[in-house]
């Protein structure tokens, strides 16, 4: 197992925490938490095999969050001295005091055992140890390979993040963590007459290091070798006829549908209205817990902050709660929500399941998504076997456009590739396809889920929520799955053409 970088451990973590927590106690805070973070992000962008731009930025600072007289107070600072930490703690208490007249719901937190420990995510090669020129050369070689096979243009990018967090609270929990994640992506573009289109790699972002680009966890050369021909076929494909079709959806597309229609819909803060003015609420209201038929009986969904290489995997969350795995949908019924400590106590759900997260030292932790994943069927079918059960349908691969309403009912998704299914066999690509459905109708129409051999962990670096806006990385695992009678739109016709 890798170790936390010594230069982070060399920062005055405990001295700052002690100063802040002591000051908060002196000023009468019922609860106080100190969090020091360093988040380093490097992004490279190439166009047609040439470096177009790169950035290497970090965010370093600390935050103090208190509860004073039942009201939250939060302040962030950047000067790493005990005096500054104590001053920021006093600011957090002052913010709580100023805000108290506006607060009608006293803040109380679910109990959590005291933890002390160190946790590092699973990766082999720190991407920040790899010289920039090597990364540019690799992406450039891949891009040149695509250009040599007849595509017009290639854009390539590599995002790399190292997130280091030190947390200490007034209950005695002290944790130190380091997570690494990478997201390589290439998009090939081609014109044919008046048409143009593109095709992106399906490789998901992962909680791995640079080894992901060199053969561990994904075979980039193999995927890239297929893209020019697939893109040419897509450009020559017929436009879809709008109507209802059976769908077989690959994990490279289904992860995003899970994210939008299950992940966000089962966040308890949304269900209770705390995101009502921004991200929205949820059709899966709290009174339906244990009752709502979310999907067909073969639907089983878990929230998980412990999955290997998951982007939302942690040792402890940003309220000092240990990472856990829990059920959200069991046999098609809603049985659980994602929680933070306040929400857990507010609704009498016992211990938090560890879903608090802040994306930077300047932001307060809010309830964010675990790795929410659809479980495969033990001994279940392959994608080919799922397709064999469709007479007239469409096979969907790769995510692209997505949109869902503020209660998570109505969604519309497109993809990277759509194949016509005729009598159980693939019959070439289709263009201009979008699928549109209501969440529960869609999941209740799922009549088969693939076996573990079809399971892939997809995800995103940049799930947005909260005000001020925060982004969170999250993974979603799923098998291929089959859905009956889903509405398909022709996007050209939708545009009035």
């Amino acid at each position, binding site marked *: 197992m890798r170790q936390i970088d010594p230069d982070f451990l060399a920062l005055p973590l405990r001295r700052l925490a002690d100063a802040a927590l002591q000051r908060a106690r002196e000023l009468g805070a019922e609860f106080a938490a100190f969090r020091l973070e360093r988040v380093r992000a490097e992004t490279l962008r190439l166009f047609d095999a040439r470096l177009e731009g790169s950035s290497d930025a970090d965010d370093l600072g600390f935050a103090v969050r208190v509860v004073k007289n039942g009201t939250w107070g*939060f302040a962030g600072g950047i000067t790493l001295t005990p005096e500054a930490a104590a001053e920021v703690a006093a600011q957090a208490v002052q913010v709580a005091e100023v805000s108290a007249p506006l607060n009608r719901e006293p803040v109380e937190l679910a109990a959590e055992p005291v933890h002390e420990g160190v946790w590092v995510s699973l990766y082999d090669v720190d991407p920040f140890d790899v010289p920039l020129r090597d990364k540019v050369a690799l992406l450039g070689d891949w891009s040149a390979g695509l250009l040599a096979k007849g595509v017009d243009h290639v854009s390539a990018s590599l995002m790399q993040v190292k997130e280091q967090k030190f947390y200490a609270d007034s209950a005695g929990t002290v944790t130190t963590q380091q997570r690494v994640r990478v997201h390589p992506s290439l998009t090939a573009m081609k014109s044919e007459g008046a048409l143009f289109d593109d095709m992106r790699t399906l490789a998901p972002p992962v909680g791995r290091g640079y080894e992901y680009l060199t053969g561990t966890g994904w075979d980039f050369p193999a995927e890239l070798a297929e893209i020019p021909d697939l893109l040419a076929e897509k450009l020559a494909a017929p436009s879809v006829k709008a109507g209802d079709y059976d769908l077989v959806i690959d994990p490279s597309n289904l992860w995003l549908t899970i994210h939008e229609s299950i992940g966000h819909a089962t966040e308890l803060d949304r269900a209770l209205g705390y995101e*009502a*003015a921004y991200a929205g609420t949820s059709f899966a209201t709290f009174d339906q817990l244990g009752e709502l038929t979310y999907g067909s009986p073969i639907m089983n969904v878990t929230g998980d902050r412990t999955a290997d290489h998951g982007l939302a995997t942690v040792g402890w969350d940003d309220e000092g709660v240990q990472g856990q795995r829990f059920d959200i949908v069991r046999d098609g019924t809603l049985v659980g929500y994602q929680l933070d400590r306040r929400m857990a106590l507010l609704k009498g759900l016992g211990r938090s399941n560890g879903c608090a997260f802040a994306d930077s030292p300047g932001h307060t932790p809010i309830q964010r998504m675990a790795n929410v994943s659809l479980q495969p069927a033990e001994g279940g079918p392959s994608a080919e076997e799922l397709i064999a059960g469709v007479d007239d349908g469409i096979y969907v691969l790769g995510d692209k456009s997505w949109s869902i309403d503020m209660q998570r009912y109505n969604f519309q998704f497109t993809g990277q590739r759509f194949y016509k299914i005729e009598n159980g066999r693939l019959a070439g690509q289709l263009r201009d396809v979008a699928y549109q459905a209501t969440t529960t109708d869609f999941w209740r129409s799922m009549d088969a889920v693939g076996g573990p051999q079809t399971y892939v962990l997809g995800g995103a670096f940049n799930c947005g929520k909260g005000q001020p806006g925060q982004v969170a990385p999250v993974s979603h695992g799923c098998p291929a799955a089959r859905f009956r009678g889903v509405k398909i739109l022709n996007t050209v016709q939708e545009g009035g053409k």
Partner: protein
Amino acid sequence: MTPQEVVERALALPGADDRVVIVDEDTTANLRFAGNTLTTNGVARGSRLTVVSIAGSGTGVVSRAGVTPDQIADVVAAADRAARDAQPSEDARPLVAGEAAADWDRPAEETSIAVFRDLAPALGEAFATAEAGGRRLYGFAEHLVNSVFVGTSTGLRRRHDQPTGRLELNAKSPDMTRSAWVGAATRDFTDVDVAALDATLAQRLEWAKRRVDLAPGRYETLLPPGAVADLMIYLYWSAGARDAFDGRTVFAKPGGGTRVGEELAKLPIDLYSDPGRAGVECGGFTVAHASSRESSVFDNGFTLGPTKWIADGRLANLIQTRHSAEVTGLAETPAIDNLIMEGPAGGKSLEEMIAATERGLLLTCLWYIREVDPQTLLLTGLTRDGVYLVENGEVTAEVNNFRFNESPVDLLGRVTEVGAASQTLPREWNDYFTRTIMPPLRVPDFNMSTVSQAN
């Protein structure tokens, strides 16, 4: 050290052929509330040093937060190393030359929780009024001040202080079935009238007491300024010259080149940016922390002026760097941080447009807007927080929400009326873009693709 001293020290260190140094000082304060009570709040401060080093035509960019004086040399050395390792930059140009601006030495401006000294009690009163009136208020108030200092090894020294404030108020009935929204963009909250905004919400929740369900279809639709802003911001973000020139966007001309000069709207619509426009003032020079398709680190300090993107209904300019302007043969028109749309003089107010409507839909705002097809800039999204039926010049009921599929470019060609422009807060994009002046629009056939059950 002051930001100006950090700039000078970083520029003075030996190593690279040329250098650009950017220091950002940020302060922020926010209040968030739900169900007539405060939920979260906070204040925060940030400081960032960005060094762009140029060695030959290679560039290296390193950005670090919370840099202490003894760490400046490390950041500069890292940027220098990256520049020496880099391939030649395609966008390489001589740095913008200049001298120290007259306001260069002023200290950075700041905000604090005190910016809400009038807003917080007004919100408290609004919560009480809402509670008594059977409404629940949700929303967010935020104030940010960014002070940016840009120095180059060619002598240029420019700074800008940008205050950005926004207030969103969302009212719901206790059963959450009726919802209304208003928003305000502001520089300092002194011009925000919470009681008036709350009264508008109360009126809209009253409108929603009568409910009519309508099927999907194409409807005559009145888009209020905030909804127009969200559509036009997406159009603006899609107006990169390089992508158009490479054949990747709605602004690409089939067969090569761009659509600059082509008629997009039959009405004499102007869409433009102007750093000096009152109420939506923004930085008057380019600040680029990294190069991309639409920005170049070599353009830091480039003076920005009023720029028409659409003039009299015709596509006039696309977002350019100095490099992409050479490639495309078009004018040097970098991105600007505000957006203004105006139609012919004498445009009506939204209320007058409602009064002149025989039967149509009045929207409040659009939400979850995403691109479906870049070739046409077809966007999808939802109506949110109030779709109203207008009959014989009056709002008569609330209508269910819809998912729409529409292209803002195609829509410009179908608009039949442009109202009077006013400053507005976009709903979807106000995390990133708050400075807009937009008119209401009448669209005869807005495509409501399907019904959303969301309230």
